[in-house]
């Protein structure tokens, strides 16, 4: 049979190309610094169950949450049907499980049908909301161009996929009455029995058979298209939301990441005996904070690849609300864009991306010697990170536990510690803390207030 052969070839190609795409994402995430995260497993699984599976944080906005839930559950449940599609595709069977697993078969198919109707309505609603309703967070500057197209492409893709499912089931429902030998009884289909007879009733067996195949192929080809599209799209969240919630920080939001490398320096500076430690001054000082993705840790990069650009962070950001340039979503998107740029350049192996003093005969380009003269500050403006009030509204808002604030702080640390730059207005603050132990330079005693009134 020709069909199983074509199917097998297409399937192998789809998975083969996808494997390479996902490997690239994995490699890019690993460009970040190592960080061990595996404590408190119970709390981590709880986050995965409640926040990724349970969509808990989505429900801060109930209407979009409900619409999103339809698409999400339809996606999850349709994966069961995919097992049958794969078996049918490889072997040339038609609906392999129909009639073999009793009531379970119509139960599964009908669940998929009902959820698919919900998903269809939700997709239309999302398209309308994105393009007609002008929800402000979908029209911020960072959404111009590809991000907006990306979002619409996914929604159109979902509609095509659903059309595939209903064309397949609808034509099949009619064919079951006409050619019971070739089209085994599926049991009553809540949607497709009606939809099929309304749309396809009276058509010839040949046309119906063609429609059924058309729907079947459209469905599976859309699945393969999605599989390969995800790694270059914001839609990757459907996979990465799960690991991202597992690896999310469990400490109170107010706690910033400790810098042991700074502690080492400060302790030796404060300890007069350790000050002249052997050779300590010879060592090249590490980069403090982050100017590029290699200075961030891999979890920051996982955050960036998990972001679906919903913009809830930005909509909650006090700086953004009052017209400042800072948009936490833009920070996260910039990290992903830069990771993609570095990944592509590393893949090219071009020696011009080797740090100048390390270039030489037979030296290969590696993440360690990479330097293309660019960094995150080519994507993110200084005034963005200066506008942050560290209020954690963005962290609180993210439905998949991305932490934009962590990245902003790392950028600030780089500015102050490595570049010795940053807003000059902060210099009096720093001087005052250093010299008088107070956030303001004051002439009065600290306990002056006890002697008044």
């Amino acid at each position, binding site marked *: 049979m020709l069909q199983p052969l074509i199917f097998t070839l297409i399937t192998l190609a789809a998975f083969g190309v996808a494997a390479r795409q996902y490997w690239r994402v994995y490699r890019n995430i690993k460009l970040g610094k190592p960080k061990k995260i595996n404590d408190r497993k119970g709390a981590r699984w709880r986050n995965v169950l409640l926040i990724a599976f349970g969509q808990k944080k989505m429900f*801060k906005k109930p209407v979009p949450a409900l619409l999103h839930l339809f698409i999400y559950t339809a996606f999850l449940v349709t994966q069961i049907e995919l097992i049958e599609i794969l078996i049918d595709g490889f072997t040339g069977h038609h609906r392999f499980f129909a009639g073999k697993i009793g009531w379970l078969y119509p139960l599964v198919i009908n669940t998929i049908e009902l959820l698919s109707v919900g998903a269809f309505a939700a997709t239309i609603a999302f398209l309308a909301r994105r393009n007609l309703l002008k929800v402000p967070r979908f029209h911020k500057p960072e959404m111009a161009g590809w991000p907006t197209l990306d979002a619409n492409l996914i929604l159109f893709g979902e509609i095509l996929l659903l059309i595939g499912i209903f064309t397949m089931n609808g034509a099949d429902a009619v064919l079951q009455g006409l050619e019971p030998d070739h089209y085994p009884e599926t049991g009553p289909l809540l949607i497709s029995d009606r939809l099929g007879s309304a749309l396809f009733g009276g058509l010839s067996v040949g046309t119906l058979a063609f429609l059924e195949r058309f729907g079947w192929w459209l469905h599976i080809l859309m699945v393969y298209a999605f599989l390969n599209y995800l790694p270059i799209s914001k839609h990757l969240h459907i996979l990465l939301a799960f690991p991202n919630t597992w690896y999310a920080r469990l400490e*109170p*939001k*107010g*706690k*910033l990441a*400790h*810098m042991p490398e*700074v*502690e080492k*320096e*400060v302790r030796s500076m*404060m300890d007069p005996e350790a000050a002249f430690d052997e050779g300590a001054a010879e060592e090249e000082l590490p980069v*403090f*904070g982050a100017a590029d993705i290699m200075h961030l840790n891999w979890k920051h990069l996982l955050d960036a690849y998990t972001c679906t650009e919903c913009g809830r962070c930005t909509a909650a950001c*006090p*700086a953004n*609300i*009052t*017209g*400042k*340039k*800072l948009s936490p979503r833009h920070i996260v998107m910039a990290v992903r864009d830069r990771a993609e740029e570095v990944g592509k350049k590393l893949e090219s192996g071009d020696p011009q991306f080797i740090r100048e003093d390390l270039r030489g005969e037979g030296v290969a380009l590696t993440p360690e010697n990479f330097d293309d003269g660019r960094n995150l500050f080519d994507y993110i403006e200084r*005034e963005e990170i*200066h*506008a*942050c*009030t*560290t*209020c*954690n509204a963005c*962290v*609180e808002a993210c439905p998949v536990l991305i932490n934009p604030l962590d990245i902003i702080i790392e950028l*600030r*640390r780089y*500015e*102050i*510690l490595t570049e010795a730059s*940053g*807003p000059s*207005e*902060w210099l009096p*603050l*720093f001087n*005052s*803390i*250093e010299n008088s*132990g*107070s*956030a*303001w330079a*004051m002439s*009065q005693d*600290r*306990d*002056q*207030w*006890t002697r*008044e*009134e």
Partner: protein
Amino acid sequence: MQVPILADLIAQGKKPEYLFWVGCAGSYDARAQKVTRAFCALLEAAGVDYAILGNEEQCTGDPARRAGNEFLFQMAALQNIELLNGYGVTKIVTTCPHCFNVLKNEYPDLGGHYELIHHTQLLQQLLDEGRLKVEGGAFEGKKITYHDSCYLGRANDIYEVPRKVLEALDNELVEMKRCRSNGLCCGAGGAQMWKEDEPGDKRINIERTEEALGTGAEVIAVNCPFCLTMMTDGVKAADKQDDVMVLDLAELILQQVRK
């Protein structure tokens, strides 16, 4: 006002239950000093055994850390930890959510382990235990709105205790639309207090104060010296300073406490 100093008590062989960490704002800002004094008056009224560090207290380093200056933060923190550990301090109460957060969550990484309690939590405890008693009157029937500070709220998930303190007063608590975990920042955090705003359409404190004024409240209750400054400035900018008061929870309690 007689405020016990830790060094004096230690010299007398006494060890108070709480160290009251006053913070830079509480020590130097004229408006925040009033909150500091109000809180001390409440501690005294309730017979709480406490002391302050006085002139030995130094900035926690919090604003430096949020600005990105980790060196300076750690230098300040290590000095404070040496002092606190030297005195054997175990319990710290503070009127500043920024000091609260940094002492509670960030000092442990550098060897400073203390039990932290925010003054609103301690006030709630004292009211619960009957060590502070309030009588109706001053705020009866008045509308009060409560502004969640970021560092008590989202940073440390403390939303309900300060509201319970407010419930102890006879007043009507009206919530802003953005409250609790959705609360809007006053604009001072992240070392913004020490710099001008980046270019934009509006100041954050104006946005927040407008929301607070929109509730029709006559009192905006806060729990943080920085929110106190920002909201007070916002009320002045709206020319409402004669109608609307911005007060710390300690001040609200003190006005109604039965002496």
